[in-house]
């Protein structure tokens, strides 16, 4: 058993672009271990995608195709990928850390008696896989224990933005069709059409200036002071998930993995601790200013300017200073 296998993600023939970040991670891990990297594509009607991957530096491209895989189901994917992984003989199986991977990869790892090392932010020599704990307050090194079964692969999912899709190396790969045993009665759930709640009326992605509010605001009526700051600055108001969960601001103003991804000129984070699900949605901002009472809040790891202090004092003072500067 050797080699790295990257399981890519596509829907209706279009790549999830995190697939290429996972491929970059796979190639780098394979280089570190001195082994080859292969990839798997799963679904139906995949030939344009497998042909595309055959132009990358990969040993093999496994085509995991079946009519029953046209639509994603956890049962279909687990059953099919179990067979593909066995055929590949891979020692490490990498995934992009998408919502879909979160839905099936833990069950797939269980089939092999293994545990997925999820949402990895770095891979070091060893190999050691780094992931975050306690909403980003700590990092942790994970590895396969030396006593673990050498016959079972190690499963790893890679966080968005950790590896660069552009760094995937080109080359030539052989396409291998995986012969699947898969029957419709193995698929127990029935997925419906994808939909959006309502037309988005706020396009945060296009806003050059964003003021964003988090849990530190404590009460719904306090949102007003952050709204005043946003108005003074001419910025869009955004929020982290808990604010929208509470219904204090509409869901369409949420920034993060389940909301919008933004890259404004300015992201001013007020009372946001910076859980990883939030950071992935905003760490591409050009300048990040954070106001938080906890000096260890993970938001300060990505901020350019930080203020450790009481937002209920700093925010009104800042609003006044901005209005004074503008007049």
């Amino acid at each position, binding site marked *: 058993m050797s080699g790295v296998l990257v399981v890519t993600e596509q829907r209706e023939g279009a790549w999830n672009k995190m697939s290429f970040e996972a491929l970059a991670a796979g190639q780098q891990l394979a280089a570190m271990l001195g082994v080859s990297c292969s990839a798997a594509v799963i679904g139906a009607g995949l030939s344009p995608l497998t042909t595309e991957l055959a132009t990358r530096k990969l040993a093999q491209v496994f085509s995991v195709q079946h009519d029953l895989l046209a639509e994603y189901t*956890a049962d279909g994917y687990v059953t099919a990928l179990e067979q593909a992984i066995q055929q590949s003989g891979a020692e490490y199986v990498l995934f992009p850390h998408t*919502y879909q991977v*979160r*839905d*099936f990869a*833990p*069950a797939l*790892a*269980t*089939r092999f008696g*293994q*545990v997925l090392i*999820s*949402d990895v932010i770095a891979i070091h020599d060893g190999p*050691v896989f780094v992931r975050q*704990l*306690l909403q*980003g307050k*700590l*990092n*942790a*090194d*994970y*590895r*396969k*224990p030396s006593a673990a079964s050498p016959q079972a692969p190690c499963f790893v999912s890679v966080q968005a933005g950790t590896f660069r899709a552009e760094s995937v190396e080109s080359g030539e790969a052989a396409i291998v069709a995986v012969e699947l045993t898969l029957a419709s009665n193995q698929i*127990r*759930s*029935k997925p*419906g059409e*994808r*939909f*959006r709640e309502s037309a988005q009326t706020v396009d945060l992605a296009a806003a050059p*200036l964003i003021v964003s509010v988090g849990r530190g605001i404590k009460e719904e009526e306090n949102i007003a002071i952050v709204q005043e700051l946003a108005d003074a600055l001419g*910025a869009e108001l955004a929020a982290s998930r808990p604010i929208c*969960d509470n219904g204090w601001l509409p*869901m369409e103003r949420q920034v993060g993995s*389940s*909301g919008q*991804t933004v890259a404004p000129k*300015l992201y001013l984070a007020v009372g946001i601790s910076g859980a990883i699900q939030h950071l992935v949605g905003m760490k591409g901002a*050009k*300048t990040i200013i954070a106001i938080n009472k906890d000096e260890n809040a993970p938001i*300060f*790891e990505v*901020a*350019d*300017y*930080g*203020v450790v*202090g009481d937002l209920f*004092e700093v925010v*009104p*003072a*800042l609003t*006044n*200073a*901005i209005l004074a*500067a*503008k007049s």
Partner: protein
Amino acid sequence: MKIIVAIKQVPERDAPIAIASDGKWIDEDDLSFTINEPDAYALEEALQLKEKNGGEVVVLCLGPERVTSTLREALAKGADRAIHVELDELAGLDTLAVAKMLAEAIRPESPDLILTGLQSDDLGAGQTGVVLAELLGIPHATIIMQVEKTATGLRVKRELEDGWFQHVEMPLPALLTMQSGGNKLRYATLMGIKKAKSKETATVSPGEPAAAAIELARVYLPEKQKKTEMLKGSATEVANQIVEKLKFEVRAL
């Protein structure tokens, strides 16, 4: 419908974190603990399903003695009974070992539905529910916002990325991992707290934990990705410094 809600007790969000002397976890001595937030949403969904469809809500938690406070709180909110899988030492256990112990406790109950949060606030692996479903041989769906009982099973609303959703239909028994925000969380009433005292908590001992498939070798403070310039002074002084940055660096003013 008999529903089991698997909950976890985690450190309070604002708790000051200190790394334990062995460098493999945090020092728990002075921490206060609470219910994992997504699990609170799982409990809320279970209570609402019971109110609509009848049945029983059983809360399940693995951990040392301290977790009984979280179970009592769930009983006070309206769960009918509790199962405490008592285990003092959680360090070194991986998701599969934990899920196996939970599965052992769940099997004799033969529930129609198992609910849990989509991930924990401490380890954040986001896998226990899915692994549990696989061990029990039942279908699952993750990151669920709404649950509806149908004639043949369930219809659930699953959250996808970037504001997309999808309905999924599935037969029972099944397992769902719940996203936060689908419902408004209730508080325990005085009457609920009183009633909880007469509700049953069964304590069970798990078997020997399975050997770990992955190992947490070391925890540490993250290195900063950027050099953060900290602005100091009174609120007014800090505000003036930010205005300077907004004017001359961000060019937003």
